[in-house]
């Protein structure tokens, strides 16, 4: 009832009629949720062992997302009257009011919906082949449905609470899917690590969210009472001399750091590769890890409201550092999926850096293109693993001939990842990032260019090792994957090239639609920040990007394709560096030695404290003392006889020898003790009540 009233009120307030599609967008996450329930309960007996239920649901969502995209991007025309559609219903009563929940549709969420549904549906289709014959096949698709549901809910949430809930649920599905093969100790450890490390970040998200709620009085993002309209209330100096809004931004960024595997919480993502490869493609490359970027993008008004810019600087530098840092590690890995994982970390760093340097649109753009080509890379890697049965690139080689479809799609996506300009989607998005960085922050720009160089190096190293040269392991008889796996590869390969054309510098449909999402106030702030940056093509940046890619390819070719440069010669000089990088800078080991060990030590100390001090010493101690006292009393009582001997002996000395011979007997001792008590009592009374006249007045009575 209330819900309906509110619903109606929202519509009236917006004064715009929306299509049925928009109003029913909440069905998009709901369908996979239903599929989750159905698959979990009846999957084994359902069509395709449950896979078709899940795929059907996600495809339906995909269709709806496409319809939304058409409505909002193509048919929408002028964006002015289509900034936002939002609906809230009360969820938790609080005092006289309530906390609301609901969903909103704007360009950003439409983009995300599209990305998620596309990749998710393709990955699920791919999984039919990849997971064929797994004993827990239905459950796999159930988890996928749950993930899709949570991820889609995350991107259409119009309030921080629903965002956080979905955020945690995608973390849960990530945990479940990483640990899908939980019999493998490494998988179960990786799952736990992923959940816990991200949860560390989530705590920041939670804190930031609560801070915003406390100060603005709402979890809702939009509307008059919403967070974004009331950010000025946070414009007071908080701890560390920062404005509260910056604190809030930083806290939210913590969540993003965890989810998007930014330094220093990046450690979980490489381990997460223990999960099935399609899972890595969908969750740990394309969508969930990008949720951190989405979060910052969604909460961008908070960052823009921070006049000091501290939060955004942190975002920028953490992102840029991660981009470089992960790329270097990627150079020295031998596991095909781990290389891709570090690549993901690095690319997410790009997106973060982009957000940090006001490249709002560029970041989201890169998010989208990255989702496509990285999903494709992972699916390709999955195809390779499926075909060879190994993940170690040192055992591969020459697969080009055996797996042509895989090779070509993989190569296309590699080029897209490297950011080859003009022809690939990744090129457009990465160049846009660099263009913004060139304008606002040259340090980030330099890191970006150098990162692009490194990216090209490790990716081409991967390609050369896997697909070129001769097979290194003769045991492996590679074969091309089944068609159900190849179709998604081809589709994604196509997207890895074509998706970039929505955001070319000349006709940036993407930007035109996305910028209004920020709302007038913050759009103005953003434009103010980017003042002077010319729209359109920046030749310098493109040249440098192209150079980086070219140099990278050249270097990689010279080292790994045609071994002209023998890096083994550098071994004596830079061996330590190689070891350092190969061991991922020992970050895991450092965490193990510090955080984990400290935590375990704290646990142990707390437990011992509890056991020995609180329970044993204090609680049992009181009990023990009571019993001890009773023993003493009991001893006293038992040995009235013997104790009396001493007592009498003591008294005897005081009185002379007169009472010496009294030292035996029982009833007598009782009497004696009574008399002692009596004397003490009498003395106490008399002394306590002594008065001078005390002994006189008796006289009055007597003759």
């Amino acid at each position: 009832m209330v819900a309906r009233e509110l619903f109606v009120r929202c519509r009236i307030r917006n004064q715009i009629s929306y299509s049925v599609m928009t109003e029913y967008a909440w069905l998009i996450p709901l369908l996979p949720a239903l599929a989750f329930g159905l698959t979990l309960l009846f999957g084994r007996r359902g069509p395709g062992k449950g896979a078709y239920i899940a795929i059907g649901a996600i495809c339906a969502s995909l269709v709806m997302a496409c319809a939304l995209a058409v409505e909002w991007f193509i048919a929408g025309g002028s964006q002015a009257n289509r900034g936002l559609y939002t609906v809230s219903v009360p969820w938790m009563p609080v005092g006289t009011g309530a906390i609301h929940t609901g969903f909103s549709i704007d360009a950003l969420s439409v983009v995300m919906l599209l990305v998620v549904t596309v990749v998710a549906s393709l990955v699920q289709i791919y999984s039919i082949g990849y997971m064929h014959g797994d004993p827990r096949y239905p459950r796999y698709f159930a988890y996928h449905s749950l993930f899709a549901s949570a991820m889609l809910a995350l991107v259409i949430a119009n309030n921080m609470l629903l965002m956080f809930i979905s955020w945690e649920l995608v973390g849960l599905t990530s945990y479940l899917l990483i640990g899908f093969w939980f019999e493998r100790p490494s998988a179960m450890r990786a799952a736990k690590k992923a959940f816990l490390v991200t949860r560390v970040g989530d705590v920041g998200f939670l804190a930031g969210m609560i801070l915003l709620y406390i100060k603005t009085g709402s979890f809702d993002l939009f509307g008059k009472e919403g967070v974004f309209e009331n950010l000025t209330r946070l414009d007071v100096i908080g701890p560390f001399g920062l404005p509260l809004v910056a604190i809030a931004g930083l806290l939210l960024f913590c969540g993003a750091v965890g989810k998007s595997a930014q330094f220093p919480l990046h450690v979980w993502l490489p381990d997460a590769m223990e999960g099935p490869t399609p899972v890595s493609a969908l969750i740990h490359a394309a969508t969930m890890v990008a949720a951190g970027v989405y979060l910052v993008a969604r909460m961008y008004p908070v960052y823009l409201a921070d006049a000091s810019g501290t939060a955004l600087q942190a975002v920028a530098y953490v992102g840029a550092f991660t981009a470089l840092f992960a790329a270097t590690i990627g150079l020295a890995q031998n596991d095909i999926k781990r290389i891709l994982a570090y690549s993901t970390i690095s690319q997410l760093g790009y997106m973060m850096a982009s957000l940090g340097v006001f490249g709002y649109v560029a970041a989201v753009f890169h998010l989208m293109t990255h989702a496509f080509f990285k999903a494709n890379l992972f699916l390709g890697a999955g195809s390779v693993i499926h075909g060879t049965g190994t993940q170690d690139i040192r055992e591969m080689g020459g697969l080009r001939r055996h797996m042509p479809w895989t090779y070509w799609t993989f190569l296309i996506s590699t080029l897209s990842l490297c950011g080859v300009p003009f022809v690939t989607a990744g090129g457009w998005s990465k160049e846009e990032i660099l263009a913004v960085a060139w304008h606002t922050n040259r340090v980030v720009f330099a890191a970006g260019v150098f990162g692009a160089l490194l990216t090209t190096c490790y990716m081409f190293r991967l390609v050369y090792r896997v697909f070129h040269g001769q097979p290194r392991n003769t045991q492996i008889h590679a074969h091309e994957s089944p068609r159900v796996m190849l179709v998604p590869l081809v589709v994604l390969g196509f997207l890895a090239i074509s998706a970039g054309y929505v955001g070319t510098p000349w006709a940036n449909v993407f930007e035109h639609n996305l910028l209004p999402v920020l709302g007038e106030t913050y759009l103005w702030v953003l434009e103010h920040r980017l003042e002077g940056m010319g729209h359109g093509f920046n030749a310098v940046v493109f040249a440098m990007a192209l150079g980086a890619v070219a140099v990278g390819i050249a270097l990689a070719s010279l080292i790994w394709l045609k071994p002209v440069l023998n890096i083994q010669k550098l071994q004596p000089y830079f061996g330590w560096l190689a070891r350092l990088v190969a061991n991922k800078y020992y970050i895991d080991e450092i965490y193990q030695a510090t955080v984990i060990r400290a935590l375990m030590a704290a646990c142990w100390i707390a437990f011992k404290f509890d056991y020995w001090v609180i329970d044993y010493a204090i609680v049992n101690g009181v009990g023990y003392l009571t019993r001890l006292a009773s023993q003493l009393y009991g001893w006293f009582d038992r040995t009235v006889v013997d104790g009396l001997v001493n007592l009498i002996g003591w008294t005897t000395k005081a009185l002379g020898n007169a009472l010496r011979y009294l030292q035996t007997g029982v009833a007598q001792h009782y009497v004696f003790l009574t008399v002692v008590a009596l004397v003490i009592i009498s003395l106490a009374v008399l002394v306590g009540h002594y008065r001078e006249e005390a002994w006189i007045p008796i006289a009055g009575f007597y003759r």
Partner: protein
Amino acid sequence: MFIGNIKLIAPALYLCAAALVVLILGVIAARKPGKGLDYQLPTQYLAPALMFPGVVYALWAVLESLIEVCYTVDVLIGYELVRVPAVALFVTRGGHAQLTADPFGALFTLVAFAGTFIVMLVSLDYFDAAQPHKAEYYSLVMFATAAASLAACASDLIAIYLSIELLSLASYVLACFVKTDRRSGEAGLKYFLYGAACSAVGLYGMSILFGVTGGHTSLSAIARGLTTPAAYSGAAWVGIVFTLVGFGFKLALVPFQFWAPDVYQGAPTPITAFLSVVSKAAGLAVLVRFLTAAVFLFPPQNFSWYWILVVLTAGSMFFGNLVAIPQRNIKRMLAYSSIAQIGYLMIGVVSAVHAFPSLERLVPRLWNLPNVIVRTRAASWYYEPWDMVGLVVYIVAYMFMNLGAFAVVAGIGTRTRSDAIDDYAGLMQRSPFLAAALTVFLISLAGVPPTAGFVGKFLIFGGAIQHAGQNHPELAVLAVLGIINSIISAYYYLNVVRLMFFAPAEDRPSLRASLALNAVVAICLVGTLGLIAAAGPVVDFASLVVSGFLD
């Protein structure tokens, strides 16, 4: 001398007569055991049969005294017309009564009678039919009860001394009644020696009090005498303290408790039960009467016997509970437990003292009586809950729970020939009813709801807290100490429960309880569990009784 309304102490008189009947018939019957009179009218059944009307009579006496206490009578003694309460008996010149059969005394009489009735039923189970000297046994118990009843009403030093001594002398004999048992003999000897010494000390104290207050033996006269400057003498205090020794012995109040463990352990269990309830009730009544008389002189703010009592109260609780912990004999454990229980009761006594905080408040009730009509209402129903209500309710609760516990102990002791706590292991399997009942009694002794013990403790601590709020912080301290002791006591009570319930069932035969034992336990169970349900009427009744308290 004005004899007064003799029907108020008629229960005691009836009991004396009944005791004589039991003695004579029993002695005759004992000449041919199992035949003739002993077969047709066995003493062990005759005695309870005669006791039961006594209980009813005592109950009636309570109600009667509740009515009578409202009135005064003008009587001519010598050449003097004095106005005395209608419950005063054997009034001498000056209007001093030897006995005051007020509702308070009547209620303690009722407790003593009911307790004795229960003890007789326990005895029925404890001794077999061939028990030697049962006529003497039962008549002694009845005499002792009559003495306890008189002690509860005694308001004169001579009456106090005589009734207490009668009670004691009977108890000495009863304690060593099993002539062939060395422990019983030892218990009797110790009880006698210690008791006689203590009563001699008490008597000496009384003689001093008699002297310093101007040759009066009546408590009301002593109270008045103590208001004169003479009473501020050290001698008066010595007298009071010495007298308290005599009462303290009866109550087994620390440090006059030495006899209790030995006697409780050695005496036949029904007699232990008798000593722990009836004898104590009498001592308590006397103590309360004596203290409320003496309180006029010594306002508790000063250092006086009041503080001694406070210390002894705390000492009793701690000593009793702590020493009870390591005990291995259940009777001895219950002995220490009853020392502690007296501590709780003493909290009630100590706070009851404040119910009469000043002479001004009490004097109008006693002496400023209207002198227009001959029979007139004296005590108004003055309504002050908590004051001594706790004391009265607790003694009733204590009777039920402690007698119940001793009944079970006696029943088990006769059947297993052991009083060791360890032999209670697995009792739940051997006799579920007795084990469950003993659990209830012990939990009640620990003061855990929903039992009578809780109601009693609740009221006693409540009274203490009430007065603590009126600028007597020591009572709050006592209440806290009482609470701490309840917890300590729970430990050793539960130890028995633990053995009965948790210990594995061994292949020992189940115990068969006799009808008498089951009846006793059932009565006590109903009392223990029913008191809380009927707490409303009980408290109302107790407040009536207390508000009719005269001294």
